[in-house]
């Protein structure tokens, strides 16, 4: 981690109050009662520092980057590249390894489409070759964003899509993963932290096994980078993706991380302006990564805003945020488990799990659970959370998910637990 300031190890009450005061929306009452926002796993809220940074850029330094020669264009380009360096330092990566994407879904699509493109070439780079007899390995718990690109890549290349099965709780283990990685495995794509179960993947062991078998590892870091210290270069993954809007940043900006060898070998899925060296009427040569994956004008003010979000997160300290959320995750997991007729999905309380709890309420559909919570101002996610195969395996169409972030309080978790405990009575489900 590239923290400049020595950080505390937890977020105390005073700090938490100061943090909450930075987020204007936490004072809103959209349902006519104080908001209890427990849907940060879907999208996080933004502190005024992020909005201020975007405002300052748009009103003082906005211009097209890497194009113009005027002074303003120079200032905008400086901010743009400084943001890349800032965000790269935050995830332990060299700046040239980060390219911009719309969000993590877009970044994962870029990898899938680029690999398909590489395999259409007459002479395929051997590191990128995927074809009949090869296997792409994922888990049964993946978000659709880390499932559909690989489904399609398998369809297009003739490779076989395999997955690590989950148990009745939606959990898979390191042993399951290691048993599934073989000489036929060419690519492994997994979520670092599950958006439904909060399970933390054993990335180090998977990378080691992948290296031994010459497979690439793609990490969906959407639910890890915002919440805990992550060092992508040290993890040794080949590619990773995360979204700005889940880490206090603006919508419409995400990050694709690619190891240098992969970044310069992959043909870009999208082509166009600002990603080429020479273009003729029939030929084109691409810039190296990261620019080769950045065709067209990027959302520069959102990128500046994301850098401000990273400043904010490191100002609090990622270790402190991690500790805060793990404690809230424990409180959630233990709390829901203690309620009669409520079933917790994912690792059992006590096992490692992120600050998220998805539950099945016996006899009450998740949509109705969410409605009762919403009436008390408690915003949670109900549905399949873009993980239909996982929910099918759990035997339900939908679950109710509460997810915490640095601004979440113990009181909010307790409020959620209180209302959840009354849901079955409300619907006469007992």
């Amino acid at each position, binding site marked *: 981690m590239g923290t400049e300031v020595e950080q505390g190890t937890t977020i105390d009450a005073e700090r938490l109050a100061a943090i909450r005061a930075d987020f204007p929306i936490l004072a809103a009452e959209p*349902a*006519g009662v104080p908001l209890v926002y427990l849907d940060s796993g879907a999208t996080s809220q933004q502190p005024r520092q992020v909005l201020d940074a975007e405002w300052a850029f748009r009103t003082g330094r906005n211009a097209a980057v890497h194009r113009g020669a005027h002074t303003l264009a120079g200032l905008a380009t400086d901010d743009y590249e400084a943001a890349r360096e800032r965000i790269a330092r935050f995830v332990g990566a060299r700046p040239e390894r980060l390219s911009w994407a719309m969000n993590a879904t877009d970044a994962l699509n870029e990898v899938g489409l680029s690999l398909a493109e590489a395999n259409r070439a007459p002479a395929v780079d051997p590191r990128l070759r995927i074809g009949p007899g090869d296997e792409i390995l994922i888990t049964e718990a993946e978000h659709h964003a880390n499932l559909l690109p690989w489904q399609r890549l398998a369809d297009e290349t003739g490779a076989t899509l395999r997955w690590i099965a989950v148990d009745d709780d939606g959990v898979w283990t390191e042993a399951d993963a290691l048993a599934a990685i073989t000489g036929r495995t060419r690519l492994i794509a997994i979520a670092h932290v599950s958006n439904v179960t909060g399970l933390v993947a054993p990335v180090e062991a998977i990378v080691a096994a992948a290296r031994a078998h010459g497979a690439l590892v793609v990490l969906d870091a959407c639910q890890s980078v915002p919440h805990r210290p992550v060092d992508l270069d040290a993890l040794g993954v080949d590619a990773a993706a995360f979204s700005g809007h889940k880490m206090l940043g603006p919508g419409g900006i995400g990050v694709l991380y690619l190891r240098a060898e992969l970044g310069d070998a992959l043909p870009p899925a999208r082509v166009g302006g600002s990603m080429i060296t020479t273009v003729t009427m029939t030929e084109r040569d691409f810039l190296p990564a990261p620019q080769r994956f950045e065709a067209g004008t990027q959302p520069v003010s959102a990128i500046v805003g994301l850098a401000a979000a990273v400043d904010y997160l490191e100002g609090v300290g990622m270790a402190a945020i991690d500790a805060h959320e793990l404690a809230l995750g424990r409180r959630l997991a233990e709390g829901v488990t203690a309620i009669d007729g409520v079933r917790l999905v994912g690792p059992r309380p006590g096992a490692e799990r992120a600050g998220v709890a998805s539950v099945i309420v016996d006899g*009450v*559909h*998740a*949509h*109705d659970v969410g*409605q*009762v919570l919403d*009436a008390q101002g408690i915003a949670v996610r*109900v*549905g*399949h959370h873009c993980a*239909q195969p996982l*929910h099918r395996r759990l035997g339900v*169409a*939908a679950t109710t998910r509460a997810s915490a972030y640095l601004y979440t309080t113990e009181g909010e978790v307790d409020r959620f637990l209180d209302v959840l405990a009354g849901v079955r009575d*409300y*619907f*006469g489900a007992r």
Partner: protein
Amino acid sequence: MSDPLAGLYQELILEHAKRREGEGLIEPYDAERFLKNPTCGDEIRLRVRLEDGRIAALGWEGQGCSISQASASVLAEEAPGLAVADARVRIEALRELLRSRGAAEPDEQLLGDAVAFAGVARFPMRVKCAMLAWVALEEALLEAEAR
């Protein structure tokens, strides 16, 4: 404190969600529609049989929230015996009521027990749940008539 959800979860709705009138797939049938609400996973498979321009029988299978299941149950209770044209009028009336955000007066004469869903109009996120079975019937009627 009054229950802010009382307008939504009327007694009749909670009762129908449990009773599930008309549950089961009828044979023979003239048309079948399978509809799904991708945001929440509610789904319904609905079959309809017509005789002399009237709905002779209607059956359904599905899973979802109490609103979607109760709405299918109410529909199954009310639709049999209706002329196709009358059924369409009622479907449209319910749609207008639900989209009114609470501004429209429900026509009890026309909608029967379905007026219980008037409260859903104040919860725009739930309108699709309440309409699911009714849209399935609307589409099934078109299909049956096209045969």
